[in-house]
């Protein structure tokens, strides 16, 4: 079994937290992982991505091969499209529909949504609104993760355990907010 996931977003949106949680869950299974991150200049509000590779057998490349990614998991809609060359024919796009507009020429949102909907396997939803609704405003990224885990073959318990382990030091209320976000994300069809 292997899962190649492109995590996408804008610098500062929390994609590395998603990577950490999935990575933690994979390690708990005894799997291996490689996670290529973007550090440096792009973190100043530019587009950022992480190649997350999880597998029960040895992983060679730190980078995912174009055309082979199982999923693009994006906390921003336009950023999801930036990595289409990586997506396998039967791969999933799981994307937050709420745009992050820090450029003057941000394209028409409906056109972006149409491109995402043109991909056979997709989920597109306003994760910011959902996070707001469940009073976990800062856990938008975990809502997006929640929407992805079934397609990635992870169970609720596994990710919930990772949330416990990773957020424990930040206090019980943060753990709970993230669990709520995970649950809300999992309900998204």
């Amino acid at each position, binding site marked *: 079994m292997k899962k190649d996931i492109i995590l996408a977003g*804008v*610098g500062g949106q929390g994609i590395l937290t998603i990577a950490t949680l999935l*990575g933690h869950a994979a*390690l708990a299974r005894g799997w*291996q*992982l*490689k*996670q*290529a*991150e*973007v*550090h*440096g*200049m*792009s*973190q*100043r*509000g*530019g*587009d950022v991505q992480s*190649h997350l590779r999880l597998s029960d*057998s040895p*992983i*060679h*490349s*730190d*980078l*995912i*091969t*174009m*055309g*082979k*990614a199982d999923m693009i998991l994006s906390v921003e809609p*336009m*950023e999801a*499209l*930036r990595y*289409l*060359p*990586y*997506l*396998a*024919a039967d*791969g999933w796009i799981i994307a937050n529909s709420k745009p992050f507009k*820090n*450029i*003057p*020429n*941000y*394209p*028409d949102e409906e*056109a*972006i949504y149409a*491109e995402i909907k043109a*991909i056979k396997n997709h989920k597109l939803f306003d994760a910011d609104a959902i996070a707001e609704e469940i009073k976990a405003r800062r856990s938008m990224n975990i809502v997006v993760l929640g929407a992805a885990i079934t397609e990635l073959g992870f169970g609720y318990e596994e990710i919930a355990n990772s949330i416990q382990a990773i957020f424990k030091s930040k206090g019980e209320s943060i753990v709970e907010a993230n669990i709520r976000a995970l649950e809300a994300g999992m309900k998204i069809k």
Partner: protein
Amino acid sequence: MEKLMLLGDEALAQGALDAGVSGFYGYPGTPSTEIIEYVQKSRQAIEAGVHRTWSSNEKTATESAIGMSYAGKRAIVTMKHVGLNVAADPFMNSAMTGANGGLIITVADDPSMHSSQNEQDSRYFGHFSMMPVLEPSNQQECYDMAFYGFELSEKYQMPVMIRLTTRLSHSRSGVSRRNPLPQNELKLPKDPVQYVLLPAIARRKYKKLIELQKDFMAESLASPFNEYMLEAPDTSKGIITTGLGYNYLREVYRDTPIPHPVIKVCQYPPPIAKIHEMYDKCDSLYILEEGMPVLEEMLKGGNFKGTKPIHGRLDGTLSREGELNPNKVAKALGLPDSYGKDIPEIVAGRPPALCVGCPHADSYLALNEAMKDYEKGHVFSDIGCYTLGFLPPYSAINSCVDMGASITMAKGAADSGLFPAVAVIGDSTFTHSGITGLLDCLYDKSNVVIVILDNSTTGMTGGQDYTAFGKLEKICAGLGVEPEHIRTFVPFKKNFDEMVQIFREEIAYEGVSVVIPIRECVQTLKRKHKQEAK
């Protein structure tokens, strides 16, 4: 022993700590920064009293590491590839002096220029200096090579270069640790002239360095990091990989065995005898290098007199620039390639930008106002977050070449009659290599305005401190800038008129002026608040 999830940078840092290093020296620079940041947070390093503060620049860092090695202890210096240009003098000469305590010079290259001005390959420098070079292909090798590098360094009394690249520096994977070694005791060099490079001694040392090359070659041939998989059925191709190239090769063959002979090179000088064996056996060679065609040029440049083709970056089999990836490797070897869908045309670029509330933004708006009376093209700048002032809406600067160049380029332009000539430089960059340029300006009384953006941090690389912190005005005054032409202000919108006025006055002054906008980087401030809250 326990397995850690580490970035390549962190694995190297942990390896060096476990291998008994006494000091890390370095100046921040993507993708090398996380090496020292890791050590600064490491309890093990703190308890063992390992040196881990930042140096003023890569040259001072390298010299400090050479000094620690002189004193018998193990030292490591870290920098990004262009940092090695700054440190080239001590670096080249360290191969002449050799080492006493183990000395590792770590340089992280950035092929594809994710965060850099160029993609120079440090292996050229390694070859140039004639010291051994190690190039890990995964996180575990990063860790192991710290042990091996110190061993090799102490065995031959020679510094060793470790070359990293972005994709390894910034990729995380599992790393197994070994039992830690103790640090070395203080011990001066046995040979009292080892570090005295007077010509007569230097000539002797150079002969020695040349003699050592055959030992380094023997070490490479026997290296645990070089692998020779020469028994394979299909000899139409022989494939040589360097660094990360090996992983991509394995990736494109997935879980099937590679049908061609393969040599994995992770230690230099390259194991030429083995490559000869492959050349004799195969109809053609394919060279997959992460970086510039260093090995390919060595092979084409005289090692092989035959007529069999050698393919790589020089003949276009692989693109001449940019980092490798599995798709490029598959295409180069004539294997099936894969691709998803094109990026839809509507996707817009999202370049990095100054953070909302960044003090540089206010400084640029005021500077632009003051420069309105002049044509464009008079503002020399430098490298840091403030380089983003090149982009709209600011479009405030006209150059970004190498650290410190803003001041000296403005000086040269002023010397040639350009008026006004303005330099915009960050506080950390000024510390790194702006101070000597300012001295030049003062010596010639050049007509320049030097703006030192004091945001109390090295912002671009993630907010490190720097050696001249809190001393900028005193340094300028001490160097001889007239006190009435050292002007400071707080870059906030509400102070706009005052800022513009100050810029105007200093542009009008014929001589060296220094203007220092002082306000902390909002990211550094946020981090500080977070830490205080803990």
